[in-house]
């Protein structure tokens, strides 16, 4: 078992954002988390990355608890998050941003090679390699954010709304890339508003509502679920 989240509770001051969330992810899987705004999906990812501290519950990665592990060590263990809202470093160039992604490594050659690898996946970034991150367009930033995540050679990639604000054609590319990464051996925990795409690419899915998981199951089954169809697939 790659990741097990058990009875996770998170508070922001008085707000009880996660109320006992439990799910798991097998090695090599893509698992989609879907749900309305503010349901707690990003909070879940942030808690796995240890940007938030849970008030109760446990997170186990390959069997070992990581709730006490500081965020930088989570990354070294191979769990990498591509955060919501892009969050690229605005005053660093595209290349520097990518180098930051590989912060935990110091092998220059390998880093260079990895940069070439992600440029291969996102040719647009190669065009903009010297431009400062902050001046990229929204979509370019999103590509950069994913590319930067890949630079850390994740074993488990946490993707938070990777398709947000992207042109349809790019969304398709991104999902292709996600699939490709997964096929190359990276497990993926995917948070998406675009439930249609997310569930079609995922193996399994969980549906969040106000801090709880209200539905879970095989991705295909969820796609057929009437409630999911109604709320997340755009009325059909």
């Amino acid at each position, binding site marked *: 078992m790659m990741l097990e989240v058990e009875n996770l509770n998170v508070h922001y001051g008085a707000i009880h954002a996660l109320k006992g969330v439990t799910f798991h992810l097998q090695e090599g899987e893509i698992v989609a988390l879907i749900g309305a705004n503010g349901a707690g999906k990003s909070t879940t990812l942030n808690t796995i990355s240890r940007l938030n501290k849970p008030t109760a519950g446990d997170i186990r990665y390959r069997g070992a608890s990581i709730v006490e592990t500081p965020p930088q060590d989570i990354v070294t263990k191979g769990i990498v998050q591509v*955060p919501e809202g892009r969050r690229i*470093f605005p005053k660093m160039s595209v290349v520097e941003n990518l180098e930051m992604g590989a912060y935990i490594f110091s092998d220059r050659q390998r880093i260079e090679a990895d940069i070439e690898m992600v440029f291969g996946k996102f040719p647009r970034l190669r065009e903009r390699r010297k431009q400062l991150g902050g001046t990229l367009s929204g979509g370019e930033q999103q590509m950069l954010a994913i590319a930067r995540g890949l630079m850390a050679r994740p074993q488990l990639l946490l993707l938070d709304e990777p398709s947000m604000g992207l042109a349809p054609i790019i969304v398709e590319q991104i999902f292709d890339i996600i699939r490709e990464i997964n096929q190359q051996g990276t497990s993926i925990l995917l948070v998406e508003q675009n439930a249609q795409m997310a569930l079609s690419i995922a193996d399994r899915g969980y549906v969040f509502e106000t801090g709880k998981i209200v539905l879970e199951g095989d991705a295909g089954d969820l796609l057929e679920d009437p409630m999911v169809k109604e709320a997340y697939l755009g009325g059909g």
Partner: protein
Amino acid sequence: MEALRKKIPLTLPQNTVKIIRIIAALLLLALVIVRAIDVAAESQFGADTWLRLSVSGLIIGGMYALIAIGYTLVYGILFMINFAHGEVMMIGTFGGYFVFEAFNAIQVTAADGSQMSFLNANPVIAVFLAFLAGMTIAALSGYFLEKIAYRPLRGAPRLVPLISAIGASIFLQNAGQLLFGPQRRQYINPVVLDRGIGWHVELAGSTVVLTYTGIFSLVLSAILMVGLYVLVQRTKLGRAMRAVAQDKKTAALMGINVDQIISRTFVISGALAGAAGVMWGIHNGLFNYFVGFLPGIKAFTAAVLGGIGNIPGAMLGGMFLGIVESLGPAVLGIDFQLKDVIAFSILILVLIFRPSGILGEALSEEKV
């Protein structure tokens, strides 16, 4: 009021403002040049005086620059003005002082059999250790300052750490006074670095002394600045610092230990201030618990002048400020008492035309 607003447009169209600004700048420049030519025509000062003034400006500018870098580093990463930075320098000055005092007290037998103090027998080692001590203790105080007074305030509104810093500054100043007494102290330099001696340059019929301590300070601050620049631009630590500066949360997601990087920033900025402090002692001699206050303010000014958060900017700002202070009154033929007026006026002018400092990036086209 409404009527008034309509009648007197407080806000001119952007282009008009720009043009007015440029005209004003040119006028000012012309004024300064005319005045300078006037003064030069009166030829009050010979070349020797100009050389003296420039050298003294460069030396003081070098120290400002070192301290300013500390401000800029911390500002860059936490967006806070570390008001207690001058006090960190003060601590460094004391650190170096005690090393010199100790070595001065230790008597050794020199090669020629005479008794002399360790300080004079091994000046290189003594000076090196004085810098080491001053920089270490200043770095440590920077570290603890951050840990005690600033870290608990991460995420608080922007001005709150500033107040904490002001409190820390008051505390450290008074602690310095109470620990070491209110009296001024003086660095006892090794004889080879005596404050009076130096290279003699004959110029315009008079001798200009370029003191060893001054040149030493200037060279050392240049070396430290270059070293720091390389550190920040080229090393992983430097890159991590920049990342933390831009977005702490995301930096953590890259595997950066944010707290550690911030601590290290304070350590580096403290060490530089410590070096400036020891230099201050060696070159100027006199100091007490208050020594950090004025240079602190000046260095802060320099950092902003250069574009706060920008390391080359801090260096440039420091040097610029030092030279303006020293040459400004002479060039304009104004009382030296008003040198700070000149310095601040130039600061204001620069910022009016470049609202984010000499090397700061332009704000005008913010992306929304």
